[in-house]
């Protein structure tokens, strides 16, 4: 079982490395020989909640003794040909160029004077060639330091490297010091005993969205607020209906006819009076709602619609934001109840994709994107209301938030497991479900939208 120090989110520029790339990079840099190895990451970028986010898209390992070799000063360096090839790719594809090497040690790392001198010699010219950010990166298995140069000549330290895997890893130059004074409220004493002071501070620093505030999303909102998440983004355009009342925690008859966001906001504030809430009584396809999702550290998808699925999946793949989908399916045909499913599905960038799993229907997506009147007319076979009951919603909601809190506080045994969980209450069984990825998926495949961030799609060389 790997043990990871929990680091609360740091303010400043960051680099996010998807689990799949991290696994490859880790194997390349740390094969067990304690020698120096090098690589280049090409990355998209976007503005995040705490600063610029570089989004690693592709790993190009440098071959030992060919692309990465002892230089004139005796230290290892990337060969001129390897640098040239990749800085030209960064320029042509408008991606950030990130040369990486490893140092000895485990939980602390810093650049050597030789490293910094070589950055100062080389990076001003490289940023002029690529016209994109350049970020020198040095890693140990549990620490990272970065030296970020912009085309305008400014230079900053990278605040953290984020790896959205089964554990949400945050690597920094050294572990965050536990605060001398007790920063968390006394009321969190029992859960600080699980997550630690740093875990609790991490919850407080996070921005988390809940998309869909029906039976499942309402409970997820309450669980997150009670956990101590500092900022919730609540998204649902729907109003509370009388038939929703038995499944909405905290709801009364006076909520009928009012937005589900108003109920969820009230519930969250009752749980945590100082919480920050962004309430969006709108559909996910509105562009400013998508912009809010991109400012989050984690997304919970608790809406059934194809558009909600599509745009959440897009934020996961293009902006490298981890998400959890949670839902319940109760098939009833002619009064006969079929197999009941309570599902939570982990959507990690590049390793869990709703298109690849066949969970978005293109025609349903077309209908969902219509104006409300057209949408109603396009469903010319009227649907019947789905069966629903609170304890089944609670099963999915609790599984989803339980996974999240283990991930954030790095308590999962396996960093790279990305299975979803399927409960079948009628047979009292619980299975793990692994998602597939297609090599030519427009969203999660390496050469497509994946990790592009804000870069316009028109620049994609392969399309």
């Amino acid at each position, binding site marked *: 079982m790997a043990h990871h120090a929990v680091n609360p989110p740091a303010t400043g520029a960051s680099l996010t490395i998807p689990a799949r790339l991290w696994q490859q990079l880790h194997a390349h840099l740390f094969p067990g020989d304690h020698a120096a190895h090098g690589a280049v990451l090409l990355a998209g970028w976007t503005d995040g909640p705490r600063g610029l986010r570089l989004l690693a898209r592709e790993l190009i390992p440098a071959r030992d003794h060919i692309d990465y070799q002892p230089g004139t000063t005796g230290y290892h360096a990337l060969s001129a040909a390897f640098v040239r090839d990749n800085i030209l790719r960064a320029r042509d594809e408008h991606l950030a160029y990130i040369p990486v090497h490893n140092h000895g040690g485990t939980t602390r790392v810093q650049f050597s004077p030789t490293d910094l001198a070589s950055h100062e010699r080389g990076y001003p010219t490289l940023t002029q060639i690529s016209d994109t950010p350049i970020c020198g990166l040095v890693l140990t298995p549990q620490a990272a330091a970065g030296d970020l140069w912009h085309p305008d000549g400014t230079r900053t330290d990278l605040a953290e490297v984020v790896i959205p895997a089964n554990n949400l890893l945050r690597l920094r130059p050294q572990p965050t010091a536990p605060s001398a004074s007790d920063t968390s409220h006394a009321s969190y004493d029992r859960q600080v005993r699980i997550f630690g002071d740093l875990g609790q501070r991490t919850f407080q620093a996070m921005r988390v969205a809940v998309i869909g505030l029906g039976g499942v999303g309402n409970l997820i909102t309450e669980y997150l607020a009670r956990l101590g998440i500092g900022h919730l983004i609540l998204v649902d355009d729907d109003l509370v209906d009388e038939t929703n009342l038995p499944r909405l925690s905290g709801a009364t008859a006076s909520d009928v006819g009012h937005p589900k966001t108003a109920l969820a906001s009230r519930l969250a504030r009752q749980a945590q009076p100082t919480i920050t809430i962004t309430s969006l009584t709108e559909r996910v396809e509105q562009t400013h709602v998508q912009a809010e999702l991109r400012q989050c550290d984690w997304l919970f998808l608790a809406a059934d619609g194809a558009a909600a699925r599509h745009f959440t999946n897009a934020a996961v793949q293009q902006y490298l934001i981890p998400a959890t989908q949670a839902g319940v399916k109760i098939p009833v045909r002619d009064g006969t109840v079929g197999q009941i499913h309570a599902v939570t599905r982990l959507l990690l960038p590049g390793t869990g994709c709703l298109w690849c799993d066949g969970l978005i229907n*293109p*025609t349903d997506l*077309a209908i969902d994107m219509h104006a409300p009147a057209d949408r109603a007319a396009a469903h010319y076979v009227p649907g019947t209301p789905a069966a629903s009951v609170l304890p089944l919603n609670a099963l999915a909601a609790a599984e989803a938030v339980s996974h999240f809190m283990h991930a954030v506080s790095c308590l999962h045994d396996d960093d790279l497991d990305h299975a979803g969980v399927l409960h079948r209450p009628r047979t009292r069984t619980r299975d793990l479900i692994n998602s597939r990825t297609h090599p030519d998926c427009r969203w999660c495949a390496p050469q497509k939208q994946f990790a592009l961030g804000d870069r316009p799609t028109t620049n994609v060389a392969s399309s």
Partner: protein
Amino acid sequence: MTTHPATTAPIATALTELRAHFGADAVTITPDGSGGVYVVISDLPVGPAYTQARTWLGFQISAAHPDADIYPHYTGALTRTDGQPHGQAIQHVTWQGRPGEQALQISRRSNHRDPAVDTPINKAVRILAWLTTQ
């Protein structure tokens, strides 16, 4: 030719293909308010099955293009020359792309949809061919 505000690159490509096929003057574009467009292609022949000789064909290319299907399609009001009602894939509606008039809604899903094949232009041509043979 109607000018349109900046849309996504895939939508721009689809509009270029539609204008090249039907003629720029025949293609009217209106923003749908969510990053997509309503497209209306005017003055298309519909064959002898209908009392009207020509009509328009409309559809939405949403912000989810090319991931979303183009569905459904709309035409102006048509009556059959044989006096029979339309088949079950055709309904009378009003449509936001042309809210001031009666329209027909044509519901033809693309099963096993391939975004490279089921483009807005290819599907418009297929819908027109289907309509004339009903």
